[in-house]
């Protein structure tokens, strides 16, 4: 359904390669997780799919989405707008700044319905009430008339979710949807995401640095490191048998109550940004000399790929 081919994003002004030749796909109704540390290119991937990369970025690649073909840097904004909000929904990290403070939250959802589905004002409001009830924003009719500052973070995130799914998109991208929320609310939102996408057969691309979140929701996981796709695996396999040293580091650095931290991912040092080679090479304890040449993404088994010379 969604196929991304050789997606590269660079910021020439600051000499940053945000993504290099990332390719992956998402099947209809599937939940795919993207993990990686800060700056690994997770959010850039989301922006690229929506065609909203910052204008200073130099990007290339091709995106096929439900029979449409977008070439980054060639397709125009109006091409992308045909899918944004209708076939593609996005939920952002911080709900506190994701809603227009001057408009009631109900109107911010019903506006999307009116704009995309050409619903009448009354129909759109009815639909919004239904969505608010579905998402647990009670009492829906009162909540609709409230303004963002009158809602809590979790409620705002529910409103954002309502706006993103109101047109029944085929793909929902959730970019760190629970990072800004506290743990109990986080669980509620994750449950909602799961229920909603399952009920409407919406594919979910879940971006998170939280492996716990990924383990709960995702069926398949992509691991990004320094803009490279270093590993791809079914969620159970990734957690039981990580193939890339970076993935092992990520898994080992999840804090646990019963054990001291086993391994720590070394911090990225500014001065040894490698221009070629594996993105993790400068920090990898298992590095060998050929790591400085770009290792290919090797298919290990069905649906399992790794980019490492030293794979086990």
């Amino acid at each position, binding site marked *: 359904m969604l196929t991304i081919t050789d997606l590269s994003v660079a910021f020439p002004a600051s000499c940053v390669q945000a993504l290099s030749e990332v390719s992956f796909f998402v099947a209809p109704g599937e939940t795919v997780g993207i993990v990686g540390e800060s700056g690994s290119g997770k959010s850039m991937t989301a922006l690229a799919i929506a065609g*909203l990369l910052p204008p200073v970025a130099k990007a290339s690649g091709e995106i096929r989405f439900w029979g449409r073909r977008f070439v980054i840097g060639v397709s125009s*904004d109006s091409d992308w707008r045909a899918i944004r*909000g209708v076939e593609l929904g996005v939920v*952002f990290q911080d709900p506190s700044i994701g809603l227009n*403070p*001057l408009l009631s939250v109900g109107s911010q959802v019903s506006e999307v319905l009116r704009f995309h589905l050409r619903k009448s004002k009354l129909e759109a409001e009815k639909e919004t009430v239904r969505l608010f009830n579905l998402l647990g924003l009670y009492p829906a009719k009162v909540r609709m*008339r409230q303004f963002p*500052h009158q809602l809590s973070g979790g409620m705002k995130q529910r409103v954002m979710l309502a706006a993103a799914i109101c047109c029944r998109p085929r793909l929902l991208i959730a970019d760190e949807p629970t990072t800004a929320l506290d743990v109990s609310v986080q669980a509620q939102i994750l449950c909602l995401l799961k229920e909603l996408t399952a009920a409407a057969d919406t594919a979910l691309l879940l971006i998170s640095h939280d492996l716990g979140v990924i383990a709960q929701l995702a069926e398949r996981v992509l691991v990004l490191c320094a803009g490279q796709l270093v590993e791809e695996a079914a969620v159970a396999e990734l957690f039981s048998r990580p193939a890339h040293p970076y993935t092992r580091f990520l898994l080992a650095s999840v804090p646990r109550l019963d054990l001291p931290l086993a391994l720590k991912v070394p911090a990225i040092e500014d001065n040894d940004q490698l221009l070629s080679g594996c993105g993790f090479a400068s920090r990898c304890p298992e590095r060998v000399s050929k790591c400085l040449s770009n290792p290919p993404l090797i298919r290990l088994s069905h649906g399992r790929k790794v980019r490492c010379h030293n794979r086990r």
Partner: protein
Amino acid sequence: MVRRQGVELYLGISLIIFLTVFAVLSPLFANYDPHQTDAERWLQSPGKEHFFGTDRLGRDIYSRVVYGARVSLAVGILAMLLSITVGTALGALAGYFGGFADQLIMRLTDIVLVYPTMLLALTLVAIFEPAIWLVVLVIGGTGWPAVARLVRGEIMRLKNLEFAAAARMLGASHRRVLLVHLLPNALGQIVVAATVAVPAAIMTEAGLGYFGLGIQPPIPTWGNMLREAQNYIRHAWWYATFPGAAIFLTVFAFHLTGEGLRQRLDPKSQSGRERRAYDH
């Protein structure tokens, strides 16, 4: 103490209406011809006949203040509209699109900012006759860069908030994001700028008049009345006081209105729209 909601706004608007009524219907309120000189009754202090006294030529100051409202308010409001319209449009474009458009517009504002208002006025007066439209053009045409900078900064701040990105993600066009999501959020600032611009324009008109570039006497404006009064300020307190009070009242009225509007436009403000929905 609980403050009555929106008192400023109602008081401000009432004052503006009051002043406007005086300006529009000045012949009804003035009891003398504002141009009528009276050689025997110059510099008379306020009394029954002349409410605000008379000036150096024996003209009735009250009538002149009433007639002066016409020119002063017209100049103030028209110049404000001009500078706010141009400044908001250019500032919003520069702030939203950035890059080349931003550079172009900001260099243009720099050029206008460094060009002295007086020099521009002199040039234009040399070409055309001094007239109200010219004064409006000079004041509005030199006032917009300040507004443009303000709006640009505000839009740049707002466009980096996620709701602009979220609106784009939901399929909104640039135009829609700018007009529906960003500009209304900058409106509070723009309204305040507008209410400051009106009295500023009235004062600039007075300043231009000082060099003979403003509205020409004998047409009374509050600005040129103040200028005339400055030589008599020690002998005739009423001469400068009443036009000054008129300017003060106008500034006050627009300030109150601006403050009230700003509060009303901000849903977070306590005296905003009446809201019975409960907060949790």
